[in-house]
């Protein structure tokens, strides 16, 4: 890859080129045709025009971000230069754990079409580094030889969940010669993220299913039906939009953005272009359109609509000619693109188109007002429309994604109303029902299929065709039939046919793709796998033991509800807002700190999978799992970007990453376990960890865990403690009731313990430490004792009091007394001599020489042959090795001082029992 301007440390100069056109009157923004870039002091001028692929300055100089430029706009003064882009991802930007989904080794020049929504696609035009060549490689063809270094290849798309085959249509190049327009067909998908918070839900849902089968299927139903189904979809859409809007905490932001982008005349113009001659009132719903456009749905219906309505409405808009244009383009190479998009958009809008043939234009202004409203506007606006239009909607299989009650309530209300309305439209919807339901199912199944496909791809990708073909063929047939009775021209069929072909082709070709053995950069070893599989627990006690193992992940974490909720709220709010923050969590070991956080993260991940919150990344480091505090940087960087660098370099890279405004950024949640070990004399590691979240662009949430409550005060210097902030939480040791609840919930109805036995364990542990690990270990040991105590392993009954008592004894009783009792005679004598000498001296310390004199006297009393000094020393050393005695270094020989490590009473008690 060539070096870009950044490397040269030169100022780049950006100038607008071409004639500005008004983009948004309100915001006084202007669109521009192209951008001239030059490096200060150099002659060469690079011109960037929309439609080109560009490199954007990022964290990594080697690998800048790649995107397709869609549009330039700026303000009146020409100071602010903005651009809208469609992002592409490099593999290194895909989260670590998702990389495996690719299932093959990536091509070094490979990039992925980004279908996610987490990235802001409005960038500062001055971060553009230059242009790059991007080629679309069809799914079935291998990558070209990596001869041309500067060409990137795109084959798949990435929607933050899975890699999908990229629809070639999305990548169709548009001629760069006709400036603002070439970008237009692509605009809708990119415009949607500008309205991100609102459109999140639907877009997300729509994205994984750019499935041609859906389109075909939808095409198979008759015009009206298609309309209906589309209408229904949009209801769903509307509901989820609504819930999404309620969810989001960053709605205001989105509204603002919408104002700047979605509502601008330019956008509207473009939308109309692609929509063709849709009813005029759609102008106001640019943002809704945007999402709708994303969803690729059936085509023919659209065309018919378009043709029918275009005549009447075309005059209203400046660009009303566009449908014609798109139609004209179809025969040549680029026809597919605009064609398809228009079809999509129309399809989504069709309910209104149909339902409101008599729609007066008077409604438009009011809607416009609505759209100016900030938060709930889009969702409610849509809802209102749907209601007033009394479109035949029947929310079958309504599955509100949001768990929030309010959202569910609202959707319920809507459903009721719609049902009422539905009755009036029974005639239309009647014939539709049977068709619609399956089509809905199909929709799901097809996306399911997609999912399984991607899974299979990762494994073997050999059975793919077999999965797909059966459901595909009939649908294709249907497709053809239905197309024949549609009034539309052959042109339509051609297009559809091609679409169908393209999709049909994909699965067949996939198996042929070679799976090259992956050679990852950092080979990680694994423990060899076992030849005989691990045996599953056989009886109740074994089952109980498996459940009680600390490592087994419980279904829920009882007794930490409050802490869970606090942490959840904290992280959730930060993720939603895209801000950063720190939290300090303390508690003695075994009180569930790490487990609770993992549970929180699990829930949040789930929520983000359900599109309730934006995606985020979770990274975990542990102070104990690194050799040096500075390794923290290395580990964080490696988990973020899979780079392996030295600590200093990693610190620099992270610093850059967290302080530079990068447009593509999801929130990072960093868990720092055993924080106290990251202490260094200058505390720069801690300082950085707590400083990064405060940066404006960092989007970093840091959760720290340590054992001591006052760690910030004790070991941190002021500037570090201040950055850590006061968001603190301390986990109290478990009380006996909580411990009991923990065990019971783990056992989960496996009846292995007597109630009293459980209570004894939990009371004992609660009194000593409140450590849940201890509690579980004791219970585990008790099951073992119980199993051994009965002769038949199968007939082992309940764990009773005595078993638990034995386990407790084993774990808690001190072994010193037994050790003294089991010591040899001379050793016992020596201990007595030690005590005798202590009494004589009145001190708790004596030299060996002094004790030995006592020892000799005692052995004379006991009638034993006195031992030599060497033997005496050996006895002393043995006691010292057991730590019954504490000794000085043995090179002091006879002068080493002796102390007792046990209390004198214990020794006397133990020795007395021996003599008795």
């Amino acid at each position: 890859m060539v070096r870009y301007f950044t490397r040269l440390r030169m100022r780049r100069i950006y100038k607008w080129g071409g004639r500005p056109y008004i983009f948004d009157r309100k915001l006084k923004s202007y669109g521009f045709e192209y951008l001239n870039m030059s490096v200060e002091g150099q002659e060469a001028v690079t011109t960037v025009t929309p439609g080109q692929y560009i490199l954007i300055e990022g964290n990594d100089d080697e690998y800048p971000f790649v995107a397709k430029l869609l549009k330039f706009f700026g303000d009146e003064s020409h100071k602010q230069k903005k651009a809208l882009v469609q992002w592409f991802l490099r593999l290194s930007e895909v989260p670590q754990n998702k990389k495996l989904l690719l299932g093959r080794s990536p091509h070094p020049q490979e990039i992925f079409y980004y279908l996610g929504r987490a990235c802001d696609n409005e960038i500062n035009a001055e971060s553009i580094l230059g242009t790059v060549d991007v080629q679309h490689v069809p799914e079935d063809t291998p990558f070209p030889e990596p001869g041309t270094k500067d060409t990137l290849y795109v084959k798949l798309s990435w929607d933050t969940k899975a890699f999908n085959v990229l629809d070639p249509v999305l990548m169709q190049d548009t001629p760069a010669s006709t400036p603002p327009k070439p970008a237009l067909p692509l605009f809708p998908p990119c415009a949607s993220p500008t309205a991100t918070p609102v459109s999140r839900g639907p877009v997300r849902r729509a994205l994984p299913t750019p499935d041609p089968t859906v389109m075909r299927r939808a095409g198979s139903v008759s015009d009206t039906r298609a309309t209906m189904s589309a209408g229904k979809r949009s209801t769903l859409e509307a509901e989820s939009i609504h819930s999404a809007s309620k969810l989001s905490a960053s709605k205001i932001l989105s509204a603002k953005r919408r104002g700047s982008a979605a509502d601008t005349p330019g956008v509207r113009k473009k939308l109309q272009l692609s929509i063709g001659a849709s009813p005029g009132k759609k102008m106001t719903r640019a943002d809704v359109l945007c999402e709708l456009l994303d969803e690729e749905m059936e085509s023919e219906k659209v065309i018919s609509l378009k043709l029918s309505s275009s005549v009447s409405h075309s005059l209203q808009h400046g660009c009303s000619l566009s449908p014609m244009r798109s139609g004209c383009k179809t025969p040549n190479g680029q026809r597919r693109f605009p064609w398809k998009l228009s079809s999509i958009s129309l399809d989504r809008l069709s309910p209104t188109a149909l339902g409101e043939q008599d729609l007066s234009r008077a409604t438009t202004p009011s809607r416009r007002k609505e759209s100016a409203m900030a938060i709930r506007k889009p969702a409610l606006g849509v809802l209102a429309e749907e209601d007033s239009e009394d479109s035949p909607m029947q929310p079958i299989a309504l599955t509100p994604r949001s768990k929030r009650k309010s959202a569910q309530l609202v959707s319920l209300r809507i459903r009721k109303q719609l049902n009422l309305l539905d009755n009036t439209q029974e005639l239309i919807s009647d014939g539709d029902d049977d068709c619609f339901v399956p089509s809905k199912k199909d929709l799901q199944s097809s996306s399911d299929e997609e999912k399984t496909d991607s899974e299979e791809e990762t494994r073997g990708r050999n059975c793919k065709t077999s999965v797909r073909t059966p459901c595909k063929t009939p649908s294709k047939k249907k497709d053809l039939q239905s197309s024949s009775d549609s009034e539309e021209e052959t042109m339509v069929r051609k297009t559809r046919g091609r679409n169908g072909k393209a999709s049909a082709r994909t699965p067949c070709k996939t198996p042929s793709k070679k799976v090259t053995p992956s050679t990852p950069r950092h080979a990680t070893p694994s423990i060899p796998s076992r030849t005989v599989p691990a045996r599953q627990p056989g009886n109740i006690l074994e089952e109980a033991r498996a459940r009680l193992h600390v490592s087994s992940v419980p279904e829920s974490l009882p007794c930490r509800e409050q802490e869970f909720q606090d942490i959840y709220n904290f992280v959730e709010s930060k993720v939603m807002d895209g801000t950063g923050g720190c939290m300090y969590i303390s508690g003695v070991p075994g009180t569930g700190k790490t487990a609770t956080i993992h549970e929180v993260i699990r829930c949040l991940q789930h929520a983000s999978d359900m599109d309730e919150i934006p995606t985020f990344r979770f990274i975990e480091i542990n102070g104990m799992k690194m050799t040096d505090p500075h390794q923290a940087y290395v580990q964080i960087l490696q988990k973020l970007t899979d780079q392996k660098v030295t600590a200093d370099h990693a610190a620099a890279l992270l610093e850059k990453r967290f302080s530079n405004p990068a447009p593509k950024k999801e929130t990072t949640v960093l868990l720092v376990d055993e924080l106290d070990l990251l202490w260094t004399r200058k505390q720069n590691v801690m300082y950085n960890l707590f400083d990064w979240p405060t940066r404006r662009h960092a989007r970093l949430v840091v959760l720290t865990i340590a054992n001591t409550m006052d760690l910030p005060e004790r070991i941190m210097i002021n500037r570090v403690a201040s950055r850590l902030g006061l968001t603190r939480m301390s986990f109290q040791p478990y009380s006996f009731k909580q411990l009991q609840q923990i065990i019971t919930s783990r056992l989960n109805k496996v009846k292995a313990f007597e109630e009293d036995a459980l209570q004894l364990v939990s009371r004992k542990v609660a009194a000593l430490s409140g450590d849940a690990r201890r509690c579980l270990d004791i219970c585990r040991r008790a099951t073992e004792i119980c199993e051994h105590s009965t002769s038949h392993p199968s007939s082992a009954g309940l764990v009773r009091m005595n078993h638990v008592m034995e386990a407790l004894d084993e774990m808690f009783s001190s072994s010193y007394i037994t050790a003294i009792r089991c010591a040899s005679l001379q050793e016992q004598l020596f201990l007595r001599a030690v005590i005798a000498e202590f009494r004589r001296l009145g001190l708790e310390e004596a030299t060996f020489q002094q004790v030995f004199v006592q020892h000799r006297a005692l052995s004379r009393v006991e009638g034993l042959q006195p031992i030599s000094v060497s033997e005496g020393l050996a006895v002393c050393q043995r006691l010292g090795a057991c730590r019954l005695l504490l000794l000085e270094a043995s090179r002091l020989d006879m002068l080493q001082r002796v102390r007792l490590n046990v209390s004198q009473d214990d020794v006397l008690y133990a020795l007395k029992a021996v003599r008795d």
Partner: protein
Amino acid sequence: MCTLSRQRKGSIHELVQMILRERFCHQRLPEKPVGMESQHKHLLELLRRTAVHGESNSVLIVGPRGSGKTMLLNCVLRELLEVKDVNKNVLPVHLNGLLQTDDRIALKEITRQLNLENVVGDKVFGSFAENLAFLLEALKKGDRSSSRPVLFILDEFDLFAHHKNQTLLYNLLDVSQSAQAPVAVIGLTCRLDVLELLEKRVKSRFSHRQIHLLSSLSFIQYLDNVRSQLSLPQDFPDTNFYDEWNDGIKTLCEDQSVVDVLQRHYNSSKDFRSLHLLLMLALSRVSASKPAIKPTDLLEASRVCMVDSKANILHGLSILELCLIIAMKHLNDIYEGEPFNFQMVHNEFKKFLQRKSHSIHNFDKPVVIKAFEHLQQLELIKSMDSSTAKIQKEYQLMKLLLDHSQIMEALQKYPQCPTDVKQWAMSAFG
């Protein structure tokens, strides 16, 4: 004919020596560990569950030196590996706190024993940090049901607790408490207070299972053990000799003097290692001409074992050095164990010379200093203050590392010790 039989006899003795030496020195595992059945069962069950069910565990085997911790563990491992399913399923990793003195070395050793280093060629042995990350990654990738259980055997466990931050222990115990590759961490230690050495977060991750090996062997059992240790195995080729030898051992163990010697040893320590030392000394006296162990052999061996280590040094001293030691003894008596310097010793010695000038040659001061230094080199006396450089040799404070009894005993046995010197030593003051 005669030579042939002698040769055969000689070879028989060599065979006996070989069998018994292997028993005493090579720590050959007994068929079944004696006196620790419950501990054996506990440990075997525990490791079996790790091997078969993939259950992670951690356990400490605690017992005084020579109590058979390693023997027990090895017996259990041997038994475990005899089970067919387990045989190829476990990966034992042996570490010793005396060999792996820090975590870096320990990590390399673990990587080597797990045969992981071939995965990445020589790259593993990069930095310490990489090593740790590498190993943790490896363990993390495993899971309970599919990866082979790893048995980490940490001999001298207490020494691992002295490593910086207890990183290794934390990580091993953490793996044993989380759903990663199944591991069993087995620590062997003689320290009863080993748990107090662990940091609290490390301690919390340890399962608190301790198997205590405290031998409560009675003297009768001890005697039985001696007999069985000295007896020849049943598959001995020469049955005549076998009977003869074993009968000899039986009578030996019934001999009163032998019983007394063994009782003395038993009183001193119950562990088998010191017993083996004693028996080894006795065994080495067996030869072709002397085909059995006699009670005298055992008595002699016992004498060698029990002998005071300093007695022999004292026997080799010159009269002058002996005189200095006696002078020191008197100083100790007078000043009740307070340290002395050369000058004081020399004065004491000169007083003795003035009284008994005829019996001992008058030595010059440099000669006496030399003798004094020699005693220091033999570590019979020890300098008290560490900063020796500043003070003149004559005035350095010293302490005597000998007991009265040792001095008197040495004087009794010293060849041709002048009577005056003896009397001086026995007199109460100077």
